[in-house]
């Protein structure tokens, strides 16, 4: 680790100003569960750290008047686990409760995970899968970005230097009738080898009105399996259909021609399995 200056602003505009003033040498820090490890290994070498821990506006969650779930970016996993979300929003708590280990869950934040944009992390895939969007603040002003556009295809995020992610917005409970996040990791504390998200809405006849399938860890950014999602719509899915959808997702996300190494062949198999599991569980939730 290299020497650095630690700044602890108490308001968002102060944090924005500090990041603006110190330019590229400065990095915002929330829970520090990725950044501190990178600094320890001297991979990241910021000379100034601007802590977001003291910004009350960035912590906690609430429902907006329109029913969107707004989660402060510096809300820890531990806080998400104990939050009493309604309906399918509960899946956010379940995902937070089943990632990394307890120290990471105590310190790590939802916004930190999105900004880190590690493809093996759970939160990026979950946010894209559930159609979330994020609010940001910077010296240039505020903006809202759909999670699907937050992650650059080549890795990382599209956030500019000094831009702070402030809020993660999940759509209203009406957006989905069932959602499910599935992943496979070798050890319980490991990041995912592959993760899959299914969010779907059923119409009055229990047919799929619309559906989203998103895969994590198979590319530098979460991948939306659009074709597979479209195939689901307008149908009453049977077990046989779900197996076919799993196979379709494999072809769409990791076709044989791209799965050359043993690891990618394995990921390809997992895509099929996890998409099947995610659809099955999301359907069960929607039908119950």
């Amino acid at each position: 680790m290299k020497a650095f200056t630690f700044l602890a602003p108490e308001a968002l505009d102060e944090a924005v100003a500090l990041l603006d003033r110190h330019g590229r040498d400065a990095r915002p820090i929330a829970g520090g569960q990725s950044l501190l490890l990178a600094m320890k290994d001297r991979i990241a070498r910021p000379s100034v750290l601007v802590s977001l821990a003291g910004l009350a506006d960035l912590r906690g969650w609430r429902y907006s008047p329109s029913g969107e779930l707004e989660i402060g970016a510096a809300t820890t996993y531990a806080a998400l686990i104990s939050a009493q979300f309604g309906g399918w929003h509960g899946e956010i708590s379940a995902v937070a409760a089943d990632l990394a280990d307890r120290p990471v869950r105590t310190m790590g934040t939802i916004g930190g995970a999105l900004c880190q944009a590690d493809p093996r992390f759970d939160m990026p895939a979950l946010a894209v899968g559930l159609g979330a969007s994020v609010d940001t603040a910077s010296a240039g002003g505020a903006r809202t970005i759909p999670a699907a556009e937050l992650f650059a295809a080549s890795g990382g995020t599209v956030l500019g230097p000094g831009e702070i992610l402030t809020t993660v917005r999940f759509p209203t409970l009406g957006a989905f009738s069932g959602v499910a996040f599935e992943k496979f990791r070798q050890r319980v504390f490991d990041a995912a080898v592959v993760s899959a998200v299914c969010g779907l809405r059923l119409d009055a006849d229990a047919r799929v009105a619309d559906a989203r399938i998103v895969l994590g860890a198979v590319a530098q950014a979460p991948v939306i399996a659009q074709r597979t999602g479209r195939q689901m719509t307008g149908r009453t899915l049977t077990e046989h259909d779900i197996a076919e959808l799993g196979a379709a997702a494999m072809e769409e996300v990791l076709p044989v021609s791209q799965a050359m190494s043993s690891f990618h062949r394995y990921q390809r198999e997992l895509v099929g399995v996890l998409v099947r599991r995610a659809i099955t569980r999301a359907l069960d939730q929607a039908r119950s």
Partner: protein
Amino acid sequence: MTETLPRTRRQTNPPAARKLVGQSMPRKEDLALLTGTARFIDDIRLPGMLYAKILRSSTAHARLNRVDTSKALQQPGVHAALCGQDLLGKVKPWGDMMQDLLVGDHFPFATDKIMYEGQEIAAVVADTKYQALDALEVIEVDYDQLPVLVDPEKAISPDAPVIQEGISYEFGDGNIFDRYRVRVGDIEETERGADLVVRQRFTSNRQAGAALDPHGCVASYDSFTGNLTIYSSTQSIFMVRDILADTLQIPRNRVRVIVPDVGAGFGSKAQMFAHEVIASVLSMQLGRPVHLVLGRGEIFRAGTCRTGQVRYAELFLKRDGRITGYRDYVVHNCGAMSLWGNQVIHIGTNVGMLPYPIPNVHVDADIVHTNTAPAGPLRGFGIPQMIFAKEQLVDVAAEQLGIDPLELRARNVVRPETFPYRTPMGQVIDSTSIYDCLHKCGEAIDWERKRAERVPYEGVGLGVSMKYTSCRHPSFDTDLSAVRLRLETDGTVTIFSSDVSHGQSHATFLAQVVGDVLGVGFEKVNLAQPDSATSPFGLGTFASRAAAVLGTACRQAAERLREKVVTIAAHVLEASPEDLETGNDRVYVRGLPDSGLYLENLASYAAYRTHQLPPGFEPTLESVATYDTPTEREAPDGSGNLSVTYSSAAHAAHVRVDPDTGRVTVVDYAMAHDTGVVINPLVVEGQHQGGFLMGIGMALGEDYVYDEDGHLLSASFKDYQAPYATELPELTKIYEIPAPSLTIPGGQKGAGESGAGPVPAAIANAVYDATGVRFTALPITPERMLLALKEKERQGVDTLRFPDDMPDFTGPRTHQEWPEPTASDEGDILL
């Protein structure tokens, strides 16, 4: 030819009162560990101490042209810098003694050549470790990349790049730095007479010791006295002292090695390392203490790990299931340099033949260098690798002969009518309960029912092994430990020993031994910190030798001390020594345990009231004993009784495989062991639990994964798949069936490594039973498991060998294609 083997009688008297040996006394070590007050190497702080850091190679094979440390010396806080050229001609290379080389092949830094990623290039010492790290970044290194050799089988090719240049090995200049061979019986005749031959190529993985306490040291040179004191996290203080003194070319009585608490080693700290020389040289240059503790990535890359093996193994059997022969060609991967690696194949193969007294054994091994991390001893010393291959062949044979795997093993495990019994390989089995252990673990896992009532994707498997208890290494003609005891003037006892306790609970179990012999209370016995200036000479703690070898030395020292206190008491009490007993912290007349003289009184006579002593009695209450095991050197044909006694392990695994993800879950596990007379069941169970943990890691996840450029891709605990507690089944089926050693006076056998040996084999056999996939490579990761299942499905077969039934497998499939051993009978001075 029959041989009369000496039968050793137990030397101790039968127990009079309730004994400490055999009881689960709470560990004396635990309070400090559980309260965080134990002091490890990184906790050492000396006045004026500086911090050193090492610049390590980021490339695996290169010609090193120039190292320039001049800019580093300009950095703030920097006191000195060193590189290989600075030390050429000033310190002596080491590694000759363990490897039977004429000249050592180890040096503190690369000088003209880089041979593996992580090799030492330069070092800086500064006021703080961060200043030292800053300064490392400005050291200039000029090198030319060389072709990298990762695959051990390519190392034997004549056109392979040569790694160790300029060292004349017995077999020339190539990458084969040693060979090993066994010629017992007549293998050609065995092959002709065999009803069944099963053969398979197996590869085993490299595994890290992964001790949580890092490798490191603090060296402190006193410029006035010329004494070098070094605190080190090591398993052997005298190995470090002797080799460090020799490397620095200073007298051995000028080097003092002390250990703080050592948070495990598993074999990975059983040698002197470059960092110990570097810190010493820097301290000698500056006259100040130098702290040098390695980071985890450094330990993965430059600490030692388990040797990797490629085995072309063949097992010969008769129709009735009798094993008549074993033949093997092994390529043994020791990494770019290795202190102990060649010894691993000797002992691992010799002892690894057990528990079967196989009459005909024919083994050739090429022991090679590759551009990978140094490899050497690790829990099991070659036995888990050997057992993985051999015990799977036993299952292959059982299936082909139509004999139950448990029954086939039962027909073959060593079960002589009289003990001691010498096997054809030369091991002297002084006692064993392996036959009973096998049946016990089968019963505990419910073998017959689970074999009969099939559950899809579930299966059971067995593995049996016997383990050495300490060893006479082929290159090392000694196997001793020593203890000195002092009865202090208040009746307490101090134990001095150089054997480092790093999980073996010396303070606890030695106190139990002393307590029983001397009659002193368990809580009154204290173990001094190992310190080469005050401790008697001993080899160190490795090879499962603590209870049996160190324990025997301790027992003998205690008996000698007992004789002294009884002599004094007899004089004072005017009684005959034969009428006196020890116990309850005193010496008393038999039958009157509440009378007599306290040890405190007896000690004070020897220290402060010497007129009370018997005439001519030397006023001392110290005793010392050294125990060297009655083991043999390895014979030229590879046979010999290398171990003083043999502990046994029979394991049974019940696994479930997820056909969707390939995850292998051990749902039930049973282990039955013969550890002889157990001094402390709690400690022994802890050793078995820990051994199982390392075994399951080797079986299911741990590996040194290299890319083709020789970069280690698994050099952190994030990437290295060591199991967490969450990945382990709860081990409740642990059984001891003691067959007390007849050679060791107290009846003990080694405990530390029995738990690891059979685990990969038992799990692999269970995986085959569950899925029909015979794993020939370790580890069995979910990725490999799932791809094997898919390949089996694609081929439409019931059974599959993985990876050699995979389309991209390029190695030889049949014995006709197997490589010829490069070892030949001609020109080998060993034969």
